[in-house]
C-alpha cells in the first residue's frame, strides 16, 4: 500500500515545520507499521535478543517513532494555536467576535497596514506640530472616511476596527468615551456606527 504523500502534511498543506530529518523515509515507515501485524509477527528476527518474540524490535521502534512524530506534530500545532491566540488578543475587536484563523490573519494584516499609515502621516506632520496630538487627528480623519466600524481604545490609543457587530454596546461606548475624553478628544469620535 503505497502512500502517495510520504511526509505528514497538516490540513494547511504545510510540512515545512517538520524538520526532523532523523526519521528516514516516512512512507516506508508507515507502510511497515501498517503491515506490522501481519508480516512482522511471522518474521523470525535473528537480530533481536529473543528470536521467538511476536513483535520484532524494529516494529516496536517503528511504532515508537510514529508516536513520537504524533507528539511532535501535536506540539507544533499547539504552539501555532497559541501564537494565534496571542495575535487575537492584541487585535482590536469586541470580545464577542471570536475570530477564526483566517479572520485573524486578514484582520492582522489590515491592522498593521492601518497603523503604518497612521504612523507615516504622523511622521510627516510631526515636523510642523506637536507629535502626539496629530496621530489622533489622523485617526479621526480615517474614521470618517475610511469605512471603519467603531472605536475602541487599544494600548491607550483611540483606534478603529471593523467588526461583525456594527455598534458598540452602551457599556463599551461609555468606557471609550471616558478614556477619549481624557485624551482631549471631542464627541464625534465616540460615534459608534458609521458602518459601511
Amino acid at each position: 500500500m503505497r502512500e502517495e504523500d510520504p511526509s505528514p502534511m497538516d490540513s494547511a498543506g504545510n510540512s515545512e515545520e517538520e524538520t526532523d530529518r532523523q526519521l528516514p523515509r516516512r512512507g516506508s515507515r508507515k507502510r511497515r507499521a501498517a503491515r506490522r501485524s501481519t508480516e512482522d509477527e511471522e518474521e523470525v528476527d535473528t537480530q533481536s535478543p529473543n528470536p521467538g518474540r511476536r513483535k520484532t524490535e524494529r516494529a516496536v521502534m517503528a511504532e515508537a517513532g510514529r508516536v513520537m512524530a504524533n507528539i511532535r506534530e501535536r506540539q507544533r500545532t499547539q504552539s501555532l494555536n497559541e501564537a494565534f491566540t496571542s495575535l487575537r488578543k492584541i487585535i482590536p475587536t469586541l470580545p464577542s467576535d471570536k475570530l477564526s484563523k483566517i479572520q485573524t490573519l486578514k484582520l492582522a494584516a489590515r491592522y498593521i497596514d492601518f497603523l503604518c499609515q497612521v504612523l507615516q502621516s504622523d511622521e510627516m506632520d510631526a515636523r510642523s506640530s506637536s507629535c502626539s496630538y496629530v496621530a489622533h487627528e489622523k485617526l479621526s480623519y480615517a474614521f470618517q472616511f475610511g469605512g471603519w466600524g467603531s472605536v475602541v481604545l487599544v494600548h491607550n490609543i483611540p483606534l478603529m476596527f471593523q467588526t461583525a457587530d456594527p455598534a458598540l454596546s452602551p457599556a463599551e461606548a461609555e468606557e471609550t468615551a471616558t478614556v477619549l475624553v481624557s485624551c482631549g478628544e471631542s464627541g464625534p469620535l465616540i460615534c459608534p456606527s458609521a458602518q459601511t
Partner: protein
Amino acid sequence: MDLSFGSEGRAGITGNTQERHRAHNVNTAFNELRTLIPTKPMDRKLSKIETLRLASSYITHLANVLGDGDRRDQPCLRTSKQDRNICTFCLSSQRKEAKDKQDCMKLHGHRVRQSCR
C-alpha cells in the same frame, strides 16, 4: 455521476477539494501578512509560526511608537517593565536612523544634519 474535470463528483465539490481550498486561502492570508512584516533581508521567508509571533510583536511595537511618537529611544522598552524584552523592530529602526544620519552626513557634510531626521 461524475463530472469530468477535477475531483468534483456528484455532490459537487468533494470534502477534500473544499479542505484544499480552505487551506489555500489560509496560506494566502499568511503570505499577505508576511509581506507586511519588515525583515532583514526584506524577502526572507518566514514560517507560519514566525509570522504569527513577529506580527504580534510588530503590532505591539507600532502601537508603542504611536503612543510615544518617537522611535529613537526604544519605546517598547519603556512600555514593558522588564529589561529582558528586546523589541527587534525598535532596534532595527534605531539602526536605520543611525545609518540614515551617517549617509546624510556623507552626502551633505555637517551643515544640514538636522534636516535629515
